[in-house]
């Protein structure tokens, strides 16, 4: 679609799994042509990494999710013959991404200095786990491990709980998203100056950036963030911030004024606390609130809180969510037909451009499906 902002750009994706490929997916949805460069026979290791044993056309559903809207070119970067083709492709590309451990691209002769000598305008995006130096550089850059090492596991759950990780790959997702930011900003500069760029980001730095509010507060106070005893929503925030059990489900309550909250829900016990005590007495307040809210159903509380414009919401699971008009009107789902003819449902790009949602029905590529065409194109251009 040539109305998309990145139309006309070509991205070579040497990345595997989630961090780098999620960046490629976003660039593809914004209009770039993304070609995965995959090793013959096995390809991106994510092709054989399934969750819940779900597969389509011999590849994991997970792979289909992350790699839709891309092409696949197989090449063994250790083979001199294949490397000649890869270098020709690099000569015509705008962006290259990889998430190999430090040293791998150097060994293949595809590090930034060499790639730049082939194509000085290229934007070279590299993701690492822990940066390119120091004692951790060769450690596996794996999401849960990064969460564990970065302090993040002490933010979720309650005070007496063991450290609790986010139940999703936050380091991968965030690092990929930030790589996209760096690449796009570099493309803007290139448009003015013709200059290429090296964009580097590590998963550890991404997660530290993610915690910037906590780290700044920690540097200022010297106090480690402390989860509340009960109903922790965010260690930095006072009562009532958290999720509470009601008579028939759960309710989330964000920042609200304590005396106003006490009045709205009819709690005399809560009414003795002032707003100034919301943080210093948060465990007591949360305990009282927790006992009080358990007495009535969610809708009863929501009616009273919303009547006073207080920040509260029902807690839904996906089934509950998808039954709502507020979900349906987003049209967040899109159907994809794989090259093997299987129909899949997935999500679309969350960014809207000029009022339009960005849908793309193009499925994930089978391994090496575009080799012939890409080689023909190279020959045609006499490259």
């Amino acid at each position, binding site marked *: 679609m040539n109305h998309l902002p990145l139309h006309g750009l070509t991205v070579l994706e040497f990345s595997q799994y989630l961090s780098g490929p999620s960046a490629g997916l976003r660039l593809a949805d914004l209009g770039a042509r993304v070609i995965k460069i995959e090793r013959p026979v096995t390809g991106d290791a994510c092709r054989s990494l399934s969750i819940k044993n779900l597969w389509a056309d011999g590849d994991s559903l997970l792979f289909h999710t992350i790699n839709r809207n891309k092409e696949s070119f197989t090449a063994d970067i250790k083979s001199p013959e294949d490397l000649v083709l890869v270098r020709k492709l690099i000569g015509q590309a705008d962006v290259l991404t990889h998430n190999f451990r430090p040293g791998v691209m150097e060994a293949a002769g595809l590090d930034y200095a060499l790639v730049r000598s082939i194509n000085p305008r290229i934007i070279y995006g590299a993701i690492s786990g822990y940066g390119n130096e120091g004692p951790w550089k060769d450690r596996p850059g794996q999401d849960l491990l990064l969460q564990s090492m970065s302090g993040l596991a002490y*933010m979720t759950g309650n005070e007496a709980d063991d450290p609790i990780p986010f139940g999703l790959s936050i380091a991968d997702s965030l690092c990929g998203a930030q790589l996209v930011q760096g690449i796009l900003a570099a493309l803007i500069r290139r448009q003015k100056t013709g200059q290429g760029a090296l964009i580097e980001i590590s998963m550890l730095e991404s997660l530290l950036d993610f915690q910037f509010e906590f780290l700044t507060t920690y540097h200022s*106070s010297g*106090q480690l963030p402390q989860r509340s005893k009960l109903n922790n929503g965010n260690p930095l925030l006072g009562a009532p911030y958290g999720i509470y059990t009601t008579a028939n489900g759960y309710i989330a309550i964000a920042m609200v004024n304590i005396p106003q909250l006490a009045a709205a829900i009819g709690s005399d016990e809560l009414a003795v606390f002032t707003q100034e005590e919301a943080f210093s007495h948060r465990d007591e307040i949360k305990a009282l609130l927790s006992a009080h809210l358990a007495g009535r159903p969610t809708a009863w509380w929501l009616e009273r809180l919303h009547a006073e414009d207080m920040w509260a919401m029902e807690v839904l699971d996906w089934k509950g969510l998808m039954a709502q008009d507020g979900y349906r009107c987003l049209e967040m789902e899109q159907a994809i037909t794989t090259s093997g003819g299987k129909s899949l449902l997935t999500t679309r790009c969350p960014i809207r451009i000029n009022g339009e949602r960005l849908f793309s029905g193009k499925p994930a590529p089978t391994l090496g499906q575009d080799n012939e065409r890409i080689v023909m194109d190279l020959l045609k251009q006499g490259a």
Partner: protein
Amino acid sequence: MDLLQDIIVVDLSQFLSGPSAGLRLADMGARVIKIERPGTGDICRQLYVSNTRIGGESTIFHAINRNKESYAADLKKKDDLQRVKKLIEQADVVLHNFRPGVMERIGLDYETVRGINPGIVYGEVSGYGNEGPWKDLPGQDLLVQALSGLTWLSNNEHAQPTPMGVSVVDILAGTHLTQGILAALYRRAIDGRSALVQVSMLESILDFQFEVLTCFYNDGRQLPVRSRTNNGNAYIPAPYGIYKTLDGFLSLAMGDIPKLGRLLDCPPLEEFTESSGWFDRRDAIKAILAEHLLSRTTDGWLSVLQPADIWCARVMDYEDLMRQIGYKILNMELKVKTSNGLSVRTTRCPIRIDGEMALSDKGAPLLGEHNKLIDGQFGLGIGLT
């Protein structure tokens, strides 16, 4: 040259989602001007967290708004609005995170702004999109987490729905907004045309769940079940999770269970020879592991597992982390100074460009600190009655 040199961003947003986008643009070289209401400014200035303040303002305001300028203007006053419009005329990007309808009422909606500046990139963050029954509800991080199904993914099976303890919705929405704005600026450099870029917090947090939502859409819509103990991810087999040891905590990612059994000298694990059982029987495996790992220190276990290339790590809090060389060599800490001499230690932009870190030491602005400068540079006072 900085990547975004000469790009001017007029940022009308407050709190975290929009301002975090502004911060990233600033760190990549843009000039970001916060438009704040006189007297109070960005409400985040007064949002004290854990009772920690810097210079009478919240620590998080300083973290989010360093490297920006502040222009105080009351958008309900004709003169002030006129000045802001004049500024927008000379800007590249406008961004806001007001609820739907507010910018229309002020007279700074996309159509109007495009009339003033036909090359503008206009970015907006909403809570739930601009239509539907939720559009006027507060777009607040915890509430969007609660609605989106996200709270059923962290913590153990029988625990309450558990929110992620960092403002993940705000930060992702801000990140996506930045992506859209940059893509539109790239396009504009080619065709000179304006663009409207919209993200909502709800769509952003659904996108964050794209792998597991896709699984849900295609597996007969089975809701996720967190493991009974040591849950790391409801969709990943044992041992994935965090385990208590004799003196702390150890995390284990994906791994071969019998191999783990041999390395850890835990014979019961060696019986799980079928890899399909690592998901189906993960509760049993995790229970065995949890019991066994209590018997030795974290370092003791790591000394066995790391040489065997098992994906494992020590679980650290900030104190522990900051003692490590692996942390120190990142140089992730940044000291910034405000114009009234206040020094604030925070984190830097995580993106390195051409091998360089972005290390601007410019602190968060005082409210209205740059009015005079901006009035002069952009000629905003001229021609006003």
